[in-house]
């Protein structure tokens, strides 16, 4: 796999506040990489560092395996924080400035305005746009010239449900064409629906990263029931990998360390003379996982 972005141990301090702490992230070509974290977890600071807006106190990063430069930024389309355009210019003139900077011709402007549904408003000044339209123009500007990488910072912030669905479809469409996407969000749902990979940040530190599908596959607990409840409880506590159980309800909920196969549990209990009349695996959602990770790091 080709590495698009490699962040090595970057740290950034604002006075006494440690915004980013020894953060390392690798993004491969073609990934939809989610950076997930609550507000103030260092997502925007990280993106600002890799786009040369902010200087990191330590650490380094590389784009496309090269030292970062203005030329590498021309291959990236980005939206950081709020949409930033000249309020007195219409979207076409605003995008022409972007095209000039990126050494693109103006042919692509019409396409991105159509894609983001702003074509009818191409003669209105940016100032007259609603927040949702401003956000869409930012995405249009990021998509101008079909860049190799798209960086989106909270792209659906401030949009109505229809707008959110539209932008998500757009992201998936662009990703389908092979564009690498880096998406920062505080919405688990969004990352879960769009991303292939995820890094979870909290207070500037990376708590976890990996494939979204793997995160979702981690089984959290099993629900068990047998005719003899007391025997079930005493036997299951001897199962290798047992962590804890909740026996407050009729069904006994059992937690294990690491991955456990339901077949192993069944075989173990049966060989110890217990016949289950209920066994179900409860997968934890990314949300639960995320909250748990945050909890453990307090």
């Amino acid at each position, binding site marked *: 796999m080709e590495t698009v972005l490699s962040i090595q141990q970057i740290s950034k301090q604002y006075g006494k506040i440690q915004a980013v702490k020894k953060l390392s992230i690798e993004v491969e070509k073609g990934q939809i990489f989610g950076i997930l974290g609550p507000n103030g977890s260092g997502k925007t600071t990280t993106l*600002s560092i890799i*786009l*040369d*807006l*902010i*200087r990191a106190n330590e650490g380094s990063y590389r784009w496309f395996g090269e030292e970062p430069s*203005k*030329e590498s*930024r*021309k291959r990236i389309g*980005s939206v*950081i*924080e*709020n949409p*930033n*355009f*000249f*309020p*007195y*210019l219409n979207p076409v*003139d605003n995008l*022409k*400035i*972007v095209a*000039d*900077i*990126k*050494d693109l011709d103006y042919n692509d402007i019409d396409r991105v305005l159509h894609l983001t549904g702003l074509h009818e408003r191409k003669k209105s000044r940016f100032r007259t746009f609603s927040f949702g339209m401003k956000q869409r123009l930012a995405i249009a*500007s990021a998509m101008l010239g079909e860049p190799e990488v798209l960086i989106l910072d909270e792209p659906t912030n401030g949009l109505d449900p229809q707008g959110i669905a539209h932008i998500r479809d757009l992201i998936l469409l662009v990703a389908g064409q092979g564009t690498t996407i880096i998406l920062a969000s505080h919405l688990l749902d969004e990352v879960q629906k769009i991303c292939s990979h995820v890094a979870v940040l909290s207070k500037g530190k990376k708590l976890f990263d990996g494939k979204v599908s793997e995160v979702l596959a981690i089984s959290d607990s099993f629900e068990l029931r047998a005719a003899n409840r007391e025997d079930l409880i005493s036997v299951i506590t001897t199962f290798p990998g047992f962590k804890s159980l909740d026996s407050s309800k009729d069904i006994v909920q059992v937690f294990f360390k690491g991955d456990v196969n339901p077949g192993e549990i069944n075989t173990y209990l049966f060989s110890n003379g217990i016949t289950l009349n209920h066994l179900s695996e409860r997968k934890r959602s990314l949300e639960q996982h995320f909250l748990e990770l945050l909890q453990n790091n307090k």
Partner: protein
Amino acid sequence: MIKLLKIEFKKIRSYKTFWILTGVYFIFLSLGIVMAEFIINNMVDNMNRHLPIPLPHVNIFFFPDVWQNIAFFATIRYVLIFPAIIIIILITNEFTFKTIRQNVINGLSKFEFLLSKLYLILLISVVLTLFMAFGSLIIGLSHTSENTLALIFEKSAFITGFFITILTLQIYAFFFGFMLRNTGLSIALFTLYALIVEPILYYFLKSPIVFKNDISTYLPLNAVLRVTEYPAIPVLKKVMGLNLQEKVTLGGCLLPLLYSSIMILIVVWTMKKKDL
């Protein structure tokens, strides 16, 4: 350079504030020049009331003095403040709208961004200078009956002086804009400094009681204003033997150029260090 100027032009082309301020500046500039002769003759009339032999009315728009007089009236403090404010607005807008961040994200280096503003300043200075040169030539031709080429261009160096003044003053404004990054604050502090603080400092430093040597000429804005410090009023020369300023000196131009170079270096260094 062309690419950066193209971007700058797109930024100002439909920016109403820029064109309104530029319009007002041109009105002030033209009015100042048209009124100059009238104001001076008014002063002469006032003086004549106390003089036994009345002074004749002056004509300040004939060759070669027209260059000096127009350069002088076009660079008085109150007129100069306009282009400075325009530059401050154009620069601090980029911070207010955060478009400087977006420009850097899109692939402009911070240095290129500074260059684009410096090129714009240079372009504005060249356009203004050409306008003034052309205007002085027309006014001079219509006020002088006997012209020789040597006479026409004798004092045309004052046009270079005008160029240096307008260029360096805009660089001072560039400095204020990039250091403060806030439109209101930059305009307020720049205007306060140019119209109040420096004039006070000037009289303080000029006073022989305070300093033995007059160091008031080293004040940054004063250094700019001194390039074309005085008008040429022949009646004063003839009657009172006063010869205020004969030419634009290299030394006079070097000091504001030195100050503005230092300011550019400070801005470059600060932009390198500071986050956007």
